[in-house]
């Protein structure tokens, strides 16, 4: 296991680096070792299973999901369903995809009137940036978009969203810092209705899920929006930073309890973090992953693609 320990701290390029940079850049690190492992191994032995375990743990799958996957593979091996390392790899891939079943779905918004998207999540996850990217996404679909600066707390949060508005040539409804978040979003919805916008994207302040009062503020936002349109918000997107570890589970549970989260956005996948904790989320909570963030630019938001995601985790293991 010594070299595995080394690998875990070695530099590995981002999962989605190849989406951006193509395959040109040489890659060294764990995934290659996995390839070598699968290729080199003629038989399935404990070492190989241990390496898979290492791969999953270092990708933030967490102990419980990892154990589930390994147990299942072990059973298949014992039943002699899997004859060689390649078969094992395929079984692993199939199993991981199975965990993501029904979770990659497009974010469809096609009711009457402005469709309201509420961005929620912990501090610094990427809500404001994703709101800006989503505005771009919907504009590409020829839909009219309005932004609401619902983060009235953090320093310069309003200015940050306004910059994204300018980049997209999209109006931003905002008040001063310290204003009531719910009333900013309420006003924005009124504006979106009267000016017949297709989509309203409401940013909110970052909040850690263990802060009761802040979570109640979110409930209030939803309550207030519903006074105008009881079908709103049509989508509540929980933004999760791919570098987050097991705490993402607590985040999802808490946000789902306080507001009806409808889906996830997984940001910062252009880094070295693998975002494996979403397997625990989708399995336990059945939340779809709508998008992944792969950078800081306007078009660095991609629809979630389960196969691509799993292959990136097993990257190079062909």
């Amino acid at each position, binding site marked *: *296991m010594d070299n595995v320990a080394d690998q875990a701290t070695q530099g590995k390029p981002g999962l989605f680096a190849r989406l951006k940079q193509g395959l040109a850049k040489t890659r060294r690190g764990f995934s290659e070792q996995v390839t070598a492992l699968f290729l080199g191994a003629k038989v399935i032995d404990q070492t190989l299973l241990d390496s898979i375990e290492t791969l999953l743990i270092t990708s933030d799958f967490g102990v419980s999901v990892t154990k589930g996957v390994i147990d299942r593979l072990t059973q298949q091996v014992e039943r002699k369903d899997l004859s060689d390392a390649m078969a094992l790899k395929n079984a692993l891939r199939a199993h991981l995809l199975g965990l993501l079943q029904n979770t990659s779905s497009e974010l469809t918004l096609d009711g009457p009137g402005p469709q309201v998207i509420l961005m929620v999540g912990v501090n610094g996850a990427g809500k404001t940036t994703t709101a800006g990217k989503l505005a771009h996404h919907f504009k590409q679909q020829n839909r009219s978009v309005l932004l609401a600066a619902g983060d009235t707390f953090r320093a310069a949060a309003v200015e940050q969203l306004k910059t994204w508005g300018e980049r997209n040539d999209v109006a931003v409804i905002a008040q001063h810092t310290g204003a009531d978040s719910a009333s900013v979003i309420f006003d924005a919805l009124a504006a979106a209705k009267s000016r017949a916008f297709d989509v309203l994207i409401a940013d909110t302040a970052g909040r850690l899920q263990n802060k009761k009062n802040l979570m109640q503020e979110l409930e209030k936002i939803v309550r207030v929006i519903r006074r105008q349109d009881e079908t709103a918000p049509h989508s509540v997107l929980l933004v999760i930073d791919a570098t987050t570890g097991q705490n993402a589970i607590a985040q999802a549970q808490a946000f789902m309890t306080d507001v009806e989260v409808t889906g996830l956005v997984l940001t910062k996948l252009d*880094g070295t973090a693998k975002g494996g904790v979403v397997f625990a989320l989708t399995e336990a909570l059945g939340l779809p992953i709508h998008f992944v963030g792969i950078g800081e630019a306007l078009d660095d938001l991609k629809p979630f693609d389960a196969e691509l995601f799993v292959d990136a985790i097993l990257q190079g293991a062909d």
Partner: protein
Amino acid sequence: MFDNLTRRVSAALGQIGGKKTLSEDNIAETLREVRLALLDADVALAVVQDFMDRIRQRAIGAEVGASLSPAQSFLKIVNEELVAVLGGASEGLDLNSQPPAVILLAGLQGAGKTTTAAKLGVWLKQRENKQVMLVSTDVYRPAAIQQLQTLAESAGLHFFASSIDQAPEQIAKDALQAAKRQFVDVLIVDTAGRLAIDDDMMQEISKLHGHLDPVETLFVVDAMTGQDAANTAKQFGEVLPLTGVVLTKADGDARGGAALSVRQVTGRPIKFIGQGETIEALELFHPDRIASRILGMGDVMSLIEEAEQKIDKDKATKLAKKIQKGRNFDLSDFRDQIQQMNNMGGLTGMLDKLPGMGNMAETAKARVDQQNFGQLEAMINSMTPKERSFPDLISGSRKRRIARGSGTEIQDVNRLLKQHKQMQKMMKKLGKKGGMTNMMRGLGGMMNQGGRPF
């Protein structure tokens, strides 16, 4: 999931029974539990492996203490080792240099650098009376400069204005000049968030470091970070000569294994933790607090240590023997227990240290405090020895006498008797496996019975 490591380790170590030392064999299962707990707390796998080796070496051959169960002895070793690896208590910043002393902040996107820049400024201004100037070299993230400016103004700190059409290196040079001209003591330089694999951006910060020659180069890391913390810290550490770490968002409920990963991989001390969004929410790092959090054990450790020091060992042994022999736990024993708990800071003091109890509502605590130990003791003191040994004797008239003698009400006497019964039942169940942990679990149950709100 693994919150109750104490329980799991107790179960795993149950078999060692009478043996007085820990051995390779009897701790194998236990080591596994600890490993899982660490992984669950997001400690990077490589760091976990390293750490488990240390534990194995320390634990094998260790003697099981007289007043501690094998599980407690083992967990004490784990905790001590964890605290040791996490490093000593933080000594804050080392600003010994020709002023202006420069502090450079580095880290991933959204880690909390800008907020921390302002927090450090407030810290130095308020506690060390320093003249502090803040500057942002983040020309990328929308409104990043404005964010720092707003924070600087609200804290009354000097702010060196920069703009997004300038090069970060130029901003740094100009700010340093200005800091010298204005004779400020400390210049804090905020930087854009960057990925460790972004070569251009890593080169940029390396150059910034070259120009600024900071006394402190701090790696800012989010307490919620998972396995990637080790990778990232390593790569930042290769590009920058880090002097310390700031762990942010520790006011959340993440177990914070990233602290251990980053500490181990960079070899640099964790100097501060961020405890909130406001600019005052910064604290010096305390390794023991993070250790028990990573292990998910509240402050069980300090409780164990106190138990070791303060519990009257003779009485404890006598009681254990008595119970083992199947004899009754009478009211004199109850009084001894009460006195021992009193020695340990009372029930509230103990509850504070137990996992999951830390957040107990203040009102609940207040009500527990009403359960005044002194009162319980006074009531037992007002009994005859015979009554203490055979509480069933205590009839209505005796109750009245005891209440009068102790300045309490009959209901109080009733409650005491009920609690004692409760405790007695528990002690019976305990049989051979006595010990603080069990006793405390029982205490929780006892209070519940009395209609207490937890």
